[in-house]
C-alpha cells in the first residue's frame, strides 16, 4: 500500500541509511536528500539523527534552507533526535537556526553526554493502539516547553518525547536503530497520507 509513496531522508550527515533501509523494508521508495532539487516530488521527509550543528551548517552550505523551510510548512515531516532539534522553534544554542515546524523549546543533549545515553522499551499509545517500541536515547534533546497547538503523544520521566503539530512529528529517541517500523508506519499513516490527500493532484 506504500509503493507509490516517495519519502526523502535528509542525507547531509547522521543515520540516514537506517531510515532509508526501513522505508525500503516497508515497500515505500526512499530518496537521499542532499540538495534542494532532491526535495521535488516528495510526499514526506525524515530528518534523521546525527549532529544538529553539522546539519545546520550543511543546510546553509548547500543552500537548502529556503526550500527546506517551505517544504516543512505544508508537507509531512518527521524529525528524530537531531531532526527534532532542526524542526523545533527555539533551541538553547544560538548557533543553530531551527526550521520552526513545531512550537517547542528544546535543550540540546538535555539528558547529558554519551555516558548518560540509554535504551528502554517504551509503552506508547498511538491513536487507539497500545504498542511497545524499543527506543534509544543517544545524547538526546530534551523538550522544555510546548506551545498550545502542540500535541504531546508520549512522555518519559515527565518530559515529552514524542510530539506533533499539523504535518510535523518529532521524537527525541531512535527506533530505526532497532529495525522497529511502528513509528515509521504511524508517520506514514497519520501524517504522509493525510497531507498527500490535501495536495492538488494531477489525476492518476
Amino acid at each position, binding site marked *: 500500500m506504500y509503493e507509490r509513496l516517495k519519502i526523502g531522508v535528509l*542525507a*547531509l*550527515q*547522521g*543515520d*540516514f*541509511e*537506517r531510515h532509508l533501509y526501513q522505508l525500503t523494508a516497508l515497500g515505500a521508495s526512499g530518496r537521499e536528500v*542532499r540538495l534542494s532539487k532532491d526535495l521535488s516530488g516528495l510526499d514526506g521527509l525524515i530528518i534523521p*539523527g*546525527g*549532529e544538529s*550543528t*553539522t546539519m545546520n*551548517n*550543511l543546510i546553509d*552550505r*548547500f543552500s537548502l534552507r529556503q526550500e527546506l523551510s517551505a517544504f516543512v510548512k505544508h508537507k509531512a515531516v518527521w524529525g528524530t*533526535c*537531531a531532526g527534532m532539534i532542526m524542526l523545533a522553534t527555539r533551541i538553547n*544554542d544560538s*548557533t543553530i537556526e531551527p526550521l520552526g515546524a513545531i512550537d517547542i523549546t528544546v535543550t*540540546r*543533549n538535555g539528558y547529558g*553526554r*554519551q*555516558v548518560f*545515553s*540509554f*535504551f528502554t522499551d517504551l509503552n506508547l499509545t498511538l491513536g487507539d493502539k497500545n504498542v511497545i517500541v524499543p527506543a*534509544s536515547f*543517544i*545524547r538526546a534533546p530534551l523538550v522544555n516547553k510546548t506551545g498550545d497547538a502542540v500535541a504531546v503523544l508520549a512522555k518519559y520521566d515527565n518530559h515529552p518525547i514524542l510530539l506533533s503539530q499539523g504535518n510535523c512529528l518529532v521524537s527525541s529517541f*531512535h527506533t530505526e*536503530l*532497532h529495525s522497529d517500523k511502528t513509528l515509521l508506519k504511524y508517520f506514514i499513516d497519520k501524517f504522509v497520507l493525510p497531507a498527500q490527500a490535501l495536495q492538488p493532484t494531477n489525476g492518476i
Partner: protein
Amino acid sequence: MDFTDKTYKIKVGLAEMLKGGVIMDVINPDQAKLAEQSGAAAVMALERVPSDIRADGGVARMAAPEIIEEIKKAVTIPVMAKCRIGHFAEAEILQALEVDFIDESEVLTPADYKYHVDKWKFKVPFVCGCRNLGEALRRIAEGAAMIRTKGEAGTGDVSEAVRHLREINRAIKTLTTMSDEELNGAAKEMSAPLSIVKVVAKLGKLPVPNFAAGGIATPADAALVMKLGAESVFVGSGIFKASNPEKRGRAIVTAVTQFSDPKALADCSRGLGEAMKGQPAAEIPDDKLLQIR
C-alpha cells in the same frame, strides 16, 4: 560478548549517528571550535597530532585531563580521546572525564603488546583501528562499537588507508560466498569468533560502522575512501598541518557529503592553499610503521 546487550546498542547507536560526518584531531579549544564551525561531527582531543608524534618521537600517551576538559567546554559536538592500546586505566580515566568515544589507538605508544582493553566493561563506546578483517573482528569481539582503518597516521599519504579498506572489502566479499565448513576455517584463520564471522557473511558488511583513517589530507582523499565504502572519515594531521585549516576542514566535510559528485568535489578543492607536506608511507621502514602495533 553479547551483541543484544542494551548498553552495546547505545554505543553502536552513537557510532551510527556519526556516519557521514568528519572527525577531526584537535589539540586545543581554538582548534576544536574551528573544527566545529567547519562542520565536523566530532573532535578527537589530543596532546599532539600524529605527524608531530612521528617527528618528535618519545612515548605518546593519553592527553592530559585539562586539555580534554577545555575542549569539552569549547564545543557541543561529541568529544573523543585516545588511550594507548591495552591501557585500561587510561580508558577508565577518559570515561570518568565523560568523553563520548574512546579511540584505543596505535598512534599512541602501546601499553600492552599482548592484550587490548576489554571494551565490554565500559559505558563509553570504543573505536579501534584495523588493517584487515581479522583485526576488525577481533576488536569487535572485544566490544568495539566502531571500526576504522589504521592507514598510516601522520603521513598525509592515503595509500595505506586504501590498502586496508580494499583488504577488508575483499575479505568480506569472500566470506559471503563461503559454505559453513569454509566459514569455520575462516574464523580459525582470522582468530575471530565464528558467531561474528557468520554475521558478517550474512550481512555482507561489518556489524558496526566502518570509518577510514590514516593519511587523509585532501577532499579528494576523503572522496576516495568514501567511494571505497568507508562510512565516514577521521582526519588527523591533514587539517591543522595544512596552510589553511579552516578552508581545508570545510572542504573535507563537503567532500564527505558530496563524494559522488565530481563537480562539487572540484569546487570544494579550489583555493585551499598547501596541503600538509607529508611523507610517503612506502619510505617508512617497517619497524617505524604505526599500523603494525
